Structure formats: C-alpha cells, structure tokens
C-alpha cells in the first residue's frame, strides 16, 4: 500500500536541475539514464557538456579493441545528441591520429562549441583539421600533442579567452598571429615548445605561463598582465648570440607590465626528465615545486641578465606582491643585479622566494663585496616585505650578503626561512654569520631548516 503513495521523486524536477545532475555524471552513466523510463529516454541528449576519457568504455587487454570501442561510443553519443554542445573534452591515450577525430571536430564546429579540450596519446601527433578554425564562439581551447596549422584566411578566434597549447607543433609566425588576432585573450599557457622566439601582442592578457625552449621572449603589448610564470630554457649558443646584441632583455620582458602582481621563474627540465616526473598541467598555474635539479640549463634569470641595462629602471611594479625565482646563481653578478632590480622596484613586495643553484661552482677569486655597497642605495626599505624563503643555499658569500641586505632593510619582516644544502660544517658557518646580521624588524623570525 505504501508503494502506491510513493511517487517518482526525480523525473518531474525542472529540466535545468536534471541537466545540472546529468552534467555532473560521467558520460556513460548519463547515457545509461536513457533506459530508466520513458521520460528519461532523451533527457541526457541535451546535456551541453560532453567529457570523454578512457573510463567511458569497458576496457579489455587489447588496445585496438579498446580504441575501436571508444571511437564507437563517442561517435554514437555525438550522433544521438541534440542541441548545442558547449564543452567537449577528450582525454585519452588510446587515440592518436584518427580520421574519426576529424569528423567529430567537423560536427562540433557546427554546434557553437565554446570550450574544447583535446588530449591525445603519444605517437603520431594529431593534425588539427581546418574546421577547428571555423568555431567562431570558442572561448577556451586546450590542445595537447597536436599539430596546428591555421589557414591563411583565418581571422582569429574573436571570443577566445583562454588558450593552452601543450606540446603543439605550430609555426612561430602562426603562433604570434594567433595570439594577436584573439583580442579577448586573458589567459595563455604555452608548454614544451622548441626554439621559439615569441613576441606577444595581447592587450587583454592577464595570466601568462610559458614553458619551453625559447630563444627570445618579448612582451610587447601586454599592459594588463597580472601574473607571469616562466620556465625557460636557453641553449649556450643562443645565450652567446645575445651577449653580442645590445638590447636589454629585462626591459623587453618586464618593461611593459606595470600591473604585475606575481612573478614566478622556474627552471625547465629537458624532455627526458619530463617523462620521468609526473606533471599535472591542467590549469594555468599548476607548476611543480622542484626539489632536485637534474639537467638544467639557464633559467629565466640568465635570460633577463643579458643585455645592457640603461641605468635606472623607469617602471615601478607597484602591484608586484610575490616573486619566486628558482636557480639563481649567486656567482653571477648580472643575475644578482636582476634580482636586486626587481626587488628595489617593487615597493609593495610581500613575499619573496629565492632558490639558489645547488651546483654552484666555487668562486674564482675573491668575491666583489663592494658590489653590494655600490648597487644598493642607502635609503631603500622594503616596506611591505613579510616572508622570505631562501632554499638551496650553499652559503657562498654573495648569498649571505643578500640575506644581510634583506634583513637590514625590511622593517616588517615576519619570517625568514633558510634551507641550506651543505654539509654540517657549512651550516655552522652560515649560522655564525647569520647571528651577526642586523635586523630592521624586531619581530623577524629566522627559521633554519635542517633536512
């Protein structure tokens, strides 16, 4: 008797709630709801987000069977779908280059798609068909392991706000014109490019994340840039080529970003190491905190240190609050100068994180300690600096001078964390020196982290 009174709890809820539920289900469960009852038969077909991955199909041990069943599933789901599709995501390593993907993209280009994520397997990289460039309403584009070749008549994605290209093969001119033809671009991530010389014109760009082998980076027109994260790699010969030129890389890179709030300079692993480590590059700022240096070449700092610096820097980074720089070589005067420049021109700096290079070569000759008196103006105070973290410190004289400089000029410093990477004797020596330093801030805590 009770059963008669219990009514269907869910089928009569408003369509937007049902869609909200179905969007949160994995696609295979959403499709399965079509056999629940007559009302549910086509409820799943109007879902606007389609997310496909390896879990969609029951896997067997045979890779080609899995590939075929995944292809069939996606094709049928697309075929039975009704209405617009706003998001399409495909992350699978079973498919590489397949004509089915071309057809799916052609189908999607007709459905006013707004967000497209394509992550395919290793092997032959997927050559993106030209129908992708007809997706006029695209706002987010993420491609992993593809080949991109915009046709000459391509005028740009006029609605694109977020671009993420990871291991994508594309001609340098094509990349630059792609970036400059997307007027609304706010967030961009370019990963694992080879030998790219990039000039960025993006008047609305706010978040920039670059990783790879760059021969040149010039932020020409990025006045609204708020956060930069760079993991750069530069080969020796390129560096030498720069030594001869007179353009100042610091100005080229950081000259036009007055609204910058966060600057992060990572080091870049070579590709081999990339495969060993587990990276999860899903968002613009999922950078990995590096503990061990494998093979590394020069970092962004080296790049920035190249070039003639024209006296006092004209820009003040009044919004810059966080600076994180890895692999600063305290043996190289130019690199230290870059760091100093950044710090001295950021009156509102709150957090500073510097990581030294553990493979620092022993200094040749006596260190030039006068350098510090020369370069640091006597009246500089880092008025907002609160947290400083120095990692991978080897205790070389310049490092200690730097710490001394920071301690003496930060009246509101709250914590200074130092993690050395030297043997016991070195640590004791460092500690002895640290004790001597004057502190401008009465509440500063010096935390000496032992392993």
């Amino acid at each position: 008797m009770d059963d008669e009174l219990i009514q269907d709890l869910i089928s009569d809820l408003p369509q937007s709630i049902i869609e909200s539920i179905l969007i949160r289900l994995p696609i295979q469960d959403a499709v399965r709801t079509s056999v629940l009852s007559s009302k549910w038969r086509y409820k799943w077909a109007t879902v606007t987000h389609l997310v496909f991955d390896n879990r969609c199909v029951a896997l067997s041990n045979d890779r080609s069977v899995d590939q075929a069943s995944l292809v069939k599933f996606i094709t049928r789901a697309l075929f039975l779908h009704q209405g617009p599709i706003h998001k399409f995501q495909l992350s699978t390593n079973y498919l590489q280059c397949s004509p089915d993907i071309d057809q799916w993209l052609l189908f999607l280009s007709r459905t006013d798609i707004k967000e497209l994520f394509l992550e395919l397997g290793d092997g032959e990289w997927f050559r993106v068909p030209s129908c992708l460039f007809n997706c006029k309403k695209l706002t987010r584009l993420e491609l992993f392991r593809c080949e991109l070749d915009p046709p000459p008549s391509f005028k740009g994605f006029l609605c694109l706000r977020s671009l993420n290209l990871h291991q994508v093969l594309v001609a340098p001119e094509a990349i630059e014109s792609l970036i400059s033809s997307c007027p609304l671009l706010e967030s961009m991530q370019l990963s694992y490019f080879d030998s790219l010389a990039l000039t960025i014109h993006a008047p609305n760009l706010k978040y920039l994340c670059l990783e790879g082998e760059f021969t040149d980076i010039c932020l020409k027109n990025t006045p609204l840039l708020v956060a930069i994260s760079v993991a750069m790699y530069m080969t020796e010969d390129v560096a030498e080529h720069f030594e001869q030129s007179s353009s100042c890389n610091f100005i080229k890179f950081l000259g036009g970003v007055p609204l910058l709030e966060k600057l992060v300079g990572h080091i870049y692993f070579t590709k081999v190491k990339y495969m060993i480590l587990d990276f999860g590059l899903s968002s613009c700022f999922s950078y990995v905190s590096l503990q061990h240096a494998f093979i590394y070449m020069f970092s962004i700092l080296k790049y920035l240190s190249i070039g003639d610096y024209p006296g006092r820097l004209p820009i003040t980074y009044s919004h810059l609050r966080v600076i994180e720089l890895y692999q600063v070589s305290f043996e190289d005067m130019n690199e230290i100068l870059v760091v100093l420049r950044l710090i001295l021109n950021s009156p509102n700096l709150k957090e500073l994180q510097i990581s030294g290079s553990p493979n620092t070569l022993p200094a040749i000759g006596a260190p030039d300690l006068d350098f510090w008196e020369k370069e640091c103006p006597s009246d500089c105070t880092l008025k907002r600096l609160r947290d400083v973290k120095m990692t991978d410190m080897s205790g070389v004289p310049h490092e200690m001078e730097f710490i001394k400089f920071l301690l003496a000029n930060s009246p509101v410093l709250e914590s200074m964390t130092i993690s050395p990477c030297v043997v016991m004797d070195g640590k004791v020596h460092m500690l002895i020196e640290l004790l001597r330093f004057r502190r401008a801030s009465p509440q500063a805590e010096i935390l000496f982290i032992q392993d």
Partner: protein
Amino acid sequence: MSEGVLSVVRSEMKSYIWLQTTDGSIQQVEKEVAMSCPVICQEILQKGLGSSKNYPIVLPERVNPALLGLILDYCRFHQAPGRSNKEHKTFDEKFIRMSTQRLCELTSAAYSLKLKPLVDLTCRALARIIEGKTPEEVRETFHIPDDLTEEEKLEPIRNITDDPHIRRLNRLYAKKRQELKERDKPRNTRVKEEHVDERSVDDLLLFINGGKDSKGVQTTKNKKKNRRRKEKEKDSASNHSDVCPLSLFEFNAAYDARSEDNVDHILSSTPSETAKLQDFVELELELDESDSDDGLDPAMKKELDREVENFARILNSNWLERRQEILSLGNERRLVPVSGNISGSISRFTSKQLFYFSFPLIACNCGCLYSWIFFTPHLL
C-alpha cells in the same frame, strides 16, 4: 554609554522577516539570513513585504516548513563570516546526509528560491547517488516507474557502452521480433518487399550499366537524412580510411567484371572487403530515418526499420559463419553464370523464396542486393 549597554542595544536591533509557507504557518527569521535567498531578497526590496506579521513574504509552494528550516540552516552557516573553506566543505558534507526523498525535495525548494549554491550542492549529491548504479538500482532508489513499453524495450537498446550482455540481449530481442513479425503479417510484408526489390534493382541496373559515380548512386539509393554521410562526403577526400561505400562498389565492380565467369572469384573476396561490407551494413542500419522515397507508409517503414536492425545484428554476428557455410555449399553445386539481366533472374523465384532471401535485401537496401546474390549462388 558604556560598552555593555551598547552591545545589548545592537543585538536587539537585529531585524526579522516574516515568512509564510504553503501550509499557512508564519515564521520569523533573521533578516540577514533570509536575504541570502534571491527570491526573498527581491520580495523585500521590491515589494516591501515581510516586515510585519500581517504582510509576510509568501514562499513558493515547494517550500514546506521542514525544508525551510534546512535551507535557513544552510544560509545561516554560509553567510556567517570568518569560516575557512574547509569548514564550509565539512558542513556541506554533513548537511546533505539525508534521505533521497528529502534531498530531491530540497533541490526543488532551493531551485524555487533561486539559491544557486544549495542547488549545486544538492545536484552534486544526487549525481553521486546515481553514479555507478545500474538502471534497476536507480529506478529503485528514486521510485521511477518502469514504463517503457514492450515494444520500446524490444527495440534494440543502443549499445552505447558495448556491453556484451546488451549485445546478447539485442540478439535475443531481434530473434523474438522476427518470429513475431513472421507470425503476424507474412503476406503483406512479402508484397511490399517485392515492391522494394524492384526499385532497388532498377537502381542496380543503372549502376551496372551506367555511371560508376559513387556519390550519384548514393543519393539515389540512400536519400537518408544522414549527417554522418554528409560529413563523410565532405571529408572523403582526405584522411578517412573508415567505412567507405566505395569499397562496396569496388566489390561490385569486381563482381561485374567477372560476371561472365564463375562466381568463385567473388566468393573468395578478401576478408577486408567483407569486413568493409559488414561495416557498411552495420552503418546503414544505424540510421534512424528511412528512405522517404520508397513509397511505403510510415507504419510499414517502422517495421522495416526494425527488421533491418534485427538482421543487422544477426548478420554481423553470423556473417563469417554463414560465409563458410555458403562457400562449402557453393563448391558442391555447379555455378550458373549470372547474366546482366538480373531482374529476370529474380522473377524466376517463387514468392516464398523471394521472401526468405529478400530479408537481407530490405535490410540493406540496395547495397545488400549483392550480398543476397552472394548468399544464394546455388539458386542462380
């Protein structure tokens, strides 16, 4: 005034709003908490209601007092400042622990009050309940009536996840439906089938005698509103090694060339061609809409569609076995060379045999005419 007195005065100044639920009862609620609901907020600001007991804000009908209590608890927690994200999450997790019925009602109530964070939370909870369950389990949890009709159930379930159980089930359904059809309307279908046969044969003749233009033949033979087909035509130039009707025509061309000789060559067509043919058959049968030009009424079309799908399944599962069978059959008998006058050969058959062999024919329209001939070499 001292601090203590001031604070007392301040707490007394907290204002209250009067809300009326569907059952007529009126509740007093703190204004800040109630303002988190957009609908209530709107009522207060635009209509000025709720400030006294005589003019309460009437809530939408899905909000009964118990649900209102829950919603207000939620609002109260979340609009209080100074709580970390983790605390919010823990609260949310505990909050949604309730019966499924209550959860559905809460979703509906939150929706009517346009309280988006709560709607998202409850939808996520419902999705978690549904995830991973079989349809029967979901029906049980939500008391969904199992009202798919027998016919709809017998329609082959679109085997989206390629479940072997569903495949087997579809095969069983197909067999059952075939039996039903044979029992119910044998004569009508036979007559109609002959009609269909002739049309296809004309097209066939056209093809064999005239142009080898695959696209042209496609449009005359297959005027199906098929997006996929159109896409294929557009993309066919470049990189698809997929199901290609062209392969079918290659097969036919081979057949044509050797029509004077024995049919052995055709029987020994390569596995790839048969695979392609098989795929083509399957492809044809996936299509939802049928030919609009066949001159059949819609009911018949539906039946034919179903038969088509049945036989696709049968064919696909038994194709290779059948082929072996026929090969062995064919070797025993003498093979009569097939002339170009195929319509003549068809008329030789009795209606019964025609019925038997034209199922595959209808199944695959013109394409499978070839398979039909292929199947019955001993009759030629």
